[in-house]
């Protein structure tokens, strides 16, 4: 069945973008003369380009995971996953643009290590710790890594999509096994890149600080955001009468993923926090001291929302099959995880002068509108059911 974007959805996404643009403009004009304006603007650029890029990347990872494990149930929602993954090129372009601007502004007080003022001996701000990391954290190597990550993600995404559409035409199991091998390869790359890219793009903002767990923590946040988007998009399509082959069991499974990945994220949040609290080493606790001093309510509130909320509400089987409850929880924890990324970036770049105003809300709404529109547009480009998927029959009869 072919999908077409309804007028309502067009109006909704367009108004999201217009409102976002308006708010951003108000935010820019009212805070233009502030001391940290450029940093604030680029911080927001980084937050929103990374957050939505990560949802696309999470979908690509999830798709590869299904291929590599030869899962059956997901076949009838495969195009939904592909549509979300299809945002990746746009997300990467936006992220690359933000990073490029930051690089040209010598780090813009976001990446201090990009500023020679901190790494050259004898200068006023010289910092021996940052200089000590220069072998890894320098603009040239940073860009080599960034481009490699993006190239690998893009090539695999293009390959998966191409073979998926080809499968619709010719069928057979050759493509299936090729996908299986490619997905396993992708997961190997992703296992390394998901950690190192999180260090490069996010952890290096708090340049003195480091945590080996940080990559997995970011990855878990990305995964749970992806699952909420997938479950809400599937529910939306079902409500409009598309995806007739998707039954309660598929929704239940997607709900379980949301529930489980929320736990994964909470587990990693807690592990990182507890180990650092326990050891109480000055160079490690500084990260949490910043957050507890300036973001106490938001930081712990965000943890409670992202952990307790899905746990208590999504625990029962009936809740995971109820469209209303799932979308309600989905929207709340999506905001919760946006806040997580917000704190991750702004606490390092702006510290105590960070605040949520027109600029922050405006840019988030703007990119969200664009994100939804791109995904809906991706859905129109292929039939919603992959007709020749070898596991389609199993997926149609999925019952749990």
């Amino acid at each position, binding site marked *: 069945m072919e999908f077409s974007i309804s007028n309502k959805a067009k109006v909704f996404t367009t108004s999201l973008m217009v409102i976002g643009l308006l708010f951003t403009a108000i935010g820019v004009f009212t805070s233009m003369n502030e001391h940290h304006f450029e940093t604030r603007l680029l911080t927001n650029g980084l937050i929103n380009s990374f957050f939505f890029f990560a949802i696309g990347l999470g979908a690509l990872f999830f798709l590869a995971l299904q291929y590599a494990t030869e899962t059956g149930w997901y076949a009838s929602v495969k195009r939904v996953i592909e549509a979300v993954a299809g945002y990746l090129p746009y997300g990467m372009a936006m992220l690359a643009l933000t990073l490029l601007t930051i690089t040209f502004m010598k780090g813009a007080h976001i990446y201090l290590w990009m500023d020679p003022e901190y790494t050259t001996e004898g200068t006023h701000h010289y910092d021996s710790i940052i200089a000590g990391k220069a072998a890894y954290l320098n603009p040239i190597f940073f860009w080599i890594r960034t481009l490699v990550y993006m190239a690998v993600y893009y090539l695999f995404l293009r390959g998966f999509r191409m073979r998926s559409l080809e499968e619709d035409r010719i069928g057979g199991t050759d493509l299936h096994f090729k996908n299986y091998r490619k997905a396993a390869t992708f997961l190997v790359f992703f296992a390394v890149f998901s950690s190192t890219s999180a260090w490069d793009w996010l952890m290096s903002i708090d340049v003195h600080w480091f945590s080996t767990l940080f990559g997995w923590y970011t990855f878990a946040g990305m995964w749970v955001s992806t699952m909420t988007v997938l479950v809400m998009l599937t529910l939306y399509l079902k409500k409009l009468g598309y995806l007739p082959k998707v039954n309660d069991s598929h929704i239940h499974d997607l709900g379980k993923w949301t529930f489980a990945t929320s736990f994964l994220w909470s587990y990693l949040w807690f592990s990182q926090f507890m180990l650092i609290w*326990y*050891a109480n080493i000055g160079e490690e606790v500084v990260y949490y001291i910043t957050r507890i001093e300036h973001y106490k309510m938001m930081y712990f509130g965000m943890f409670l929302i992202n952990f307790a909320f899905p746990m208590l509400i999504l625990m029962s089987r009936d809740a995971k099959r109820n469209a209303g409850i799932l979308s309600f929880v989905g929207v709340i924890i999506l905001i919760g995880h946006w806040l997580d990324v917000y704190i991750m970036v702004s606490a390092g770049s702006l510290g105590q002068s960070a605040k949520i105003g027109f600029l922050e809300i405006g840019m988030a709404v703007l990119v969200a509108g664009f994100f939804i529109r791109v995904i809906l547009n991706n859905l129109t480009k292929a039939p919603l059911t992959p007709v020749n998927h070898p596991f389609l029959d199993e997926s149609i009869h999925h019952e749990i």
Partner: protein
Amino acid sequence: MAEKVIYAMYDDDDVLKDGAKKLVAKGVKISEVFSPFPIHGIDPIIGIKNTRLGIMAFLYGLTGLLLATIGMRFFMVVDWPMNIGGKPNFSYLDNMLAFIPITFEFTVLCAAHGMAITYLLRNKTLPGMPAQNPDPRTTDDKFVIEIRLSENDKFTSDELEGMLKETGLIELDQKEIK
């Protein structure tokens, strides 16, 4: 009081499931199905209520949570205040982070063991207990439907047997049980 019971044996779980659907549609009450493995989707067909094991799991988990909290507060704070990384050692709340992993583990331990033992007790399948199934072959590759005459007043035993024979069974047996 002795009771008459009919056992119908099948060699395929799908045949049994279809047969059970037909019988239930005619108003027959099936009291039990014996199978070497769980038959997917049989519960709603023969009208088995949802298990209450989940409620017990919650209660066992809560017990574990409370025991762990009370225990650790006594061991680590009251009885012998333990120095945890130089942190204040007279307060449970200030050190709670350190106790969360063990609290979590003990909650899971109590919930899992409690559930397993409850399950075995409720099914009367603790090690050494006498077997309940009517035929040892139901632990191998055969499936049996049990129908009690006392629960099916509307039908005579001949009627029931007649209906059962239409469902593709391979053996039919009648027993008097206590």
